[in-house]
C-alpha cells in the first residue's frame, strides 16, 4: 500500500495534490513530519553516547588513513592553479555528477539521486539529531519546515528507488566491472540507506509524539550512526575523500610529475608515493569504469587499472607510506604473509598503452596514467626492467636518436628525395617529421602527402636538418635519462634554427613537445596537422561519395582535446561515419606508451579488436590521424577482414583529391580512381 502511494507521489507533479489524493483515499497522513516530542534526560544521554561511540569508531578507522595520506611524500609540483578549472571540475564532476551520469546514464542517474538526496538530507539529519536534545531548529509545522521536509520527502523517495535499483544491479545483474567478489558490506549499506529513507517517510504517516514515531526516530538515528563508522574501511570512503580528490587532482591530463632530487627515480617503494597518489588511492570507489574501458584489461592482459589503484591501497595499508619495500611484486621477496599481488606487477605496468581511458572515465579524480608511468619509471630508471625489446629501443634512441633504430642518413636521403627545404627561419612553419615520418615507409607517405597539402595552400615550410625522437616512447616507458637527453636536444635544435611554429603529423610528438618537454624548457608553438588543415578547410577540395570511418587517436583526443578538426577534414574528403566508440571514448590502437616497440601481446591484440570495430561500420575507408594508429591497423585490418577497407591518414585523404584534380581534363580519369 505504501509503495503504491509512493509511486503516486513520484508521478505527481504537484506534491500537495498528491497529499490531497492520499487523504481522499483515507490515509492517516498529515502534510507535516511527525516528531517524537519531549526526550527524557536519560534518552538524550543515551543518544549522546551513541553519537560519541559512532564518531569515535569513525575516527578510529579514518585516522590511520588520514595519517597515511598526510605522511606520504609531498608532491613537488603541487599547486592549486588554475583555481577556476578546479572550481568548475568540482561543480561539474561532484555537484552535478557529470562524469558519473555521462559514462553510465542509468546507474549514474541513480547514483546522482542518492548523492543529491544526501545533500538534501544534511539539514534534515542535523535537525533530527538536534531534536534528541530538544534543540530542533526546523519545526515541521513552520512554513519553512513544512516546505523543507516535503522537499526532502521527494528526495527520500528518489533515493529509496535509486538505491533499490543499484542494489539489484550489484547483486542480481552483477556487471563484471564491479568485481567478481560479492561485497556484502555494500548490500548492508544499501539496506541502511533504504532504511533511513523509509523511516523518514514513514514519519509522515504517524501521529506526533506517539510510540510509533519514537520508534521510527530511533531506527533512523541508529541507521545513521551505524552507517558512519562503516565509511572509512569500505569503498564508501569516497563519500568523504572524492570531493577533495576531484578538487586537488594534478592539473593537466595524464601529467607526469617531475622527479624530485637525486634520490627520486619514480615509484620504487612506498616512500615514493606522494600525497596526491595516496589520496587518490583511498578515494577509489571500485566502480570499474577504468577497467571496463581499458584496452589491456579487456583483451586478456594482466593489467587492470582498478587493481593497480587497489593494490597500491593494500600496499599502503600493509607497509605504510615511508616503506622501502618495493612496490612491484617482481622486486619483492614473497613470503607467506606477503603473497605476490599479480596486479601490482612489472608485467602489468608495462602492458599499459597510456591511452588514458581510465583516467578520463574516473568519476572520483584518480589519475591512473601518472601512477602507471611512475611505476615504470621506478623500474626503468633503476634498471630493474629487463626487456629485450625495451633495451633495444632505448639503445636505438641513445645511439641513433630515433625509435626505429635506423641511421640518420636514411632521413637525410628521404629529405633529399622529397626535395623538402631545410628550415632557415624564412619559412612560416617547421614541419616536424618524427620517427615515423622520417623513417617509416607509411609515415613517409603521410608526410609527403601533407607537404603537398601545405604546398597547395601556399604555406611555406622547412624541415630541420637534424632531428631526433621527441623521447615519447622513453617518457612513457619510464626512461627519464633518454627522455631528458632527447628533450634537451630537441629544445636546442628549435632554438638554434629559430623556429616559431611547428606542425606535426604525429599526436605523440605534439603532446610530448608541447607538454612533456616543459620540464626542461619551452618549445615553440606546435600543432597537429588536423588542426592546420581544419583551419584551411574552405580551401581544401570537396570530395564526395566514399564513406570514411574516423578513428580518434588517444593522444589527439583525450590528450590534446582535438575531436572536431580531423572530422572537418574527413567531411571534406567523403562521408563521415562514426565508430561505435568514438570521441572521448575511442578505443586505443594498442601502440601507445611505447608498446609499438615491445614484443607480442598477451591475449588478443588490441589493434585487432579496434580494427574489427572499424571494419564493422561498413565504411569504405578507415581514416586515421596518427602514424602509429595507421601502422597498427595496416596489419590488423587485413587480419580481421577478407575485404578490408582502405586505410588512409587525413593528410592522404586530402592529398588524393589534389592528384585527382590535376588530370581533370582527361574525362576517363574519375576522382574515385585517382588514388593508389
Amino acid at each position, binding site marked *: 500500500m505504501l509503495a503504491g502511494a509512493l509511486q503516486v507521489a513520484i508521478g505527481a507533479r504537484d506534491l500537495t495534490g498528491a497529499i490531497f489524493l492520499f487523504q481522499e483515499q483515507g490515509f492517516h497522513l498529515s502534510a507535516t513530519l511527525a516528531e517524537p516530542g519531549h526526550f527524557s534526560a536519560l534518552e538524550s544521554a543515551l543518544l549522546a553516547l551513541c553519537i560519541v561511540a559512532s564518531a569515535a569508531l569513525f575516527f578510529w578507522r579514518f585516522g590511520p588513513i588520514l595519517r597515511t595520506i598526510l605522511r606520504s611524500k609531498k608532491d613537488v609540483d603541487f599547486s592549486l592553479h588554475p583555481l577556476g578549472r578546479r572550481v568548475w571540475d568540482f561543480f561539474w564532476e561532484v555537484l552535478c555528477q557529470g562524469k558519473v551520469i555521462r559514462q553510465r546514464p542509468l546507474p549514474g542517474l541513480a547514483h546522482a539521486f542518492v548523492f543529491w538526496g544526501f545533500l538534501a538530507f544534511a539539514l534534515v539529519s542535523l535537525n533530527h539529531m538536534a531534536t534528541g536534545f530538544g534543540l530542533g531548529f526546523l519545526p515541521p509545522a513552520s512554513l519553512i519546515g513544512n516546505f523543507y521536509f516535503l522537499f526532502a520527502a521527494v528526495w527520500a523517495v528518489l533515493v529509496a528507488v535509486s538505491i533499490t535499483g543499484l542494489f539489484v544491479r550489484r547483486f542480481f545483474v552483477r556487471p563484471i566491472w564491479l568485481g567478481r567478489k560479492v561485497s556484502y558490506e555494500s548490500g548492508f549499506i544499501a539496506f541502511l540507506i533504504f532504511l533511513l529513507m523509509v523511516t523518514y517517510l514513514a514519519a509522515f504517516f504517524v501521529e506526533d509524539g506517539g510510540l510509533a514515531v519514537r520508534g521510527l526516530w530511533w531506527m533512523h538515528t541508529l541507521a545513521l550512526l551505524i552507517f558512519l563508522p562503516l565509511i572509512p574501511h569500505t569503498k564508501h570512503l569516497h563519500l568523504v575523500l572524492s570531493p577533495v580528490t576531484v578538487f586537488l587532482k594534478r592539473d593537466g591530463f595524464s601529467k607526469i610529475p617531475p*622527479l624530485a632530487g*637525486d634520490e627520486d*627515480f619514480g615509484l620504487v617503494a612506498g616512500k615514493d608515493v606522494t600525497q596526491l597518489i595516496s589520496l587518490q588511492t583511498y578515494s577509489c570507489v571500485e566502480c570499474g569504469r577504468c577497467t571496463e574501458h581499458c584496452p589491456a584489461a579487456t583483451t586478456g592482459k594482466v593489467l587492470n587499472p582498478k587493481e593497480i589503484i587497489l593494490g597500491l591501497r593494500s600496499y599502503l595499508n600493509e607497509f605504510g607510506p615511508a616503506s622501502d619495500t618495493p612496490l612491484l611484486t617482481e622486486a619483492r621477496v614473497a613470503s607467506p604473509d606477503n603473497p605476490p599481488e599479480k596486479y601490482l606487477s612489472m608485467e602489468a605496468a608495462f602492458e599499459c598503452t597510456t591511452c588514458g581511458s581510465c583516467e578520463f572515465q574516473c568519476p572520483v579524480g584518480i589519475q591512473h596514467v601518472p601512477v602507471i608511468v611512475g611505476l615504470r619509471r621506478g623500474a*626503468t*630508471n*633503476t*634498471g630493474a626492467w629487463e626487456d*629485450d625489446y*625495451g*633495451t633495444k629501443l*632505448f*639503445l636505438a634512441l*641513445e*645511439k*641513433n636518436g630515433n625509435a626505429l633504430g635506423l*641511421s*640518420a*642518413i636514411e632521413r637525410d636521403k628521404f629529405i633529399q628525395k622529397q626535395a623538402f627545404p631545410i628550415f632557415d627561419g624564412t619559412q612560416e612553419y617547421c614541419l616536424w617529421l618524427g620517427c615515423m615520418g622520417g623513417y617509416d615507409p607509411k609515415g613517409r607517405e603521410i608526410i609527403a602527402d601533407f607537404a603537398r597539402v601545405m604546398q597547395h595552400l601556399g604555406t611555406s615550410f622547412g624541415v630541420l636538418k637534424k632531428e631526433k625522437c621527441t623521447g615519447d616512447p622513453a617518457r612513457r616507458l619510464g*626512461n*627519464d*635519462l*633518454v627522455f631528458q637527453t632527447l628533450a634537451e636536444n630537441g629544445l636546442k635544435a628549435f632554438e638554434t634554427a629559430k623556429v616559431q611554429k611547428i606542425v606535426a603529423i604525429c599526436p605523440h610528438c605534439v603532446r610530448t613537445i608541447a607538454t612533456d618537454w616543459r620540464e626542461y624548457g619551452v618549445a615553440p608553438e606546435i600543432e597537429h596537422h588536423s588542426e592546420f588543415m581544419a583551419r584551411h578547410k574552405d580551401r581544401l577540395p570537396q570530395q564526395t561519395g566514399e564513406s570514411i570511418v574516423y578513428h580518434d587517436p588517444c593522444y589527439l583526443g583525450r590528450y590534446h582535446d582535438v575531436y572536431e578538426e580531423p572530422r572537418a577534414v574527413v567531411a571534406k574528403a567523403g562521408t563521415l561515419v562514426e565508430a561505435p566508440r568514438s570521441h572521448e571514448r575511442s578505443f586505443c590502437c594498442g601502440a601507445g606508451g611505447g608498446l609499438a616497440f615491445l614484443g607480442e601481446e598477451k591475449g588478443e591484440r588490441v589493434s585487432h579488436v579496434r580494427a574489427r570495430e572499424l571494419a564493422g561500420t561498413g565504411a569504405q575507408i578507415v581514416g586515421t590521424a596518427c602514424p602509429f594508429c595507421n601502422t597498427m591497423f595496416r596489419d590488423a585490418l587485413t587480419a580481421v577482414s577478407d575485404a578490408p577497407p582502405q586505410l588512409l591518414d587525413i593528410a592522404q585523404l586530402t592529398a588524393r583529391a589534389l592528384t585527382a584534380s590535376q588530370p581533370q581534363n582527361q574525362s576517363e580519369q574519375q576522382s574515385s580512381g585517382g588514388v593508389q
Partner: protein
Amino acid sequence: MKIVVAIKQVPERDAPVHIAADGKWIDEGDLNYTINEPDAYALEEALQLKEKNGAGEVVVVCAGPERVQTTLREALAKGADRAIHIEADDLGSRDTLGIAQILADAIKAESPDLILTGLQSDDLGLGQTGVVLAELLDIPHATIIMQVEVAGGGLKVKRELEDGWFQHVEMSLPALLTIQSGGNKLRYATLMGIKKAKTKELKTVAAAAPGAPAIALERVYLPERQKKTEMLTGSPAEVAAKIVEKLKFEVRVI
C-alpha cells in the same frame, strides 16, 4: 676478481666523415663520439662476470683527449666501478704499439686478474691493440671471444672461428681476451646509474711521450667508389650457372 676493460672512443657510425686539410687524419670538428661497439660488449661481459661472481671490481681505461671522459662516465653509469683516463691528444700520430704501450703503463699499476677489450675498433679496425697489449704485459690472450666462464682458478672461453666453427679454450689467469660483438645483450643506461656515476672515481693519468712509430700513416682518404657492370650472356641455364659461380667464388656469399 679485478677486471680492467680497455675501451676506445670512436666517431658515431653514421657520422659524415671528412678528411682533415693535411690529409693525415679526419676532421674531428663536427663529429659525435661514442663507445666502440665491441668494447661495449667487452664492458658488458665484465659487468656480467662481476655480477655472476658476486664480487670484484670493474675498471675502465680509455686513452684520448678530454672528450673521452663522456664515454668513461657512460661506462661508470652502466656499472663500472672506477675509470682511468689516459690523457693523449695525439692519438692519430701513435701506432698500435704506441697506444698499447700507454694502455699497458696504466694497467700495470692495477695488476688486474683479467683484461677485456673489443676485438677491433669501428674506426680503424686493425684488431691488434688487445693482442699487443697482452704481449707487453706478458700475459696469455685469446681473441674473438663469444663466451667467458670462470672455472676453478682460470677461464673457459669460446672463440669464434671461421665458417660457423668454435674453439673452446681453457686458460689461466691473469689473461687478456678480445671480445666479439653480439655475445651478450647490452644494457641500457639508467638515471640511477648516471647519478651513481657522479660519485665514482675518474682518475686522469698522463701518457708517456710518443716514441718513433713503427708504422707511419701516409694518407687518409675516403673509399673510392667503383662501378663495375658485367653482362652475362648465354641461355638462361648458362647465365644461372655463371651467376652461381660468381656468387660462390668472386662475391663469396653462398
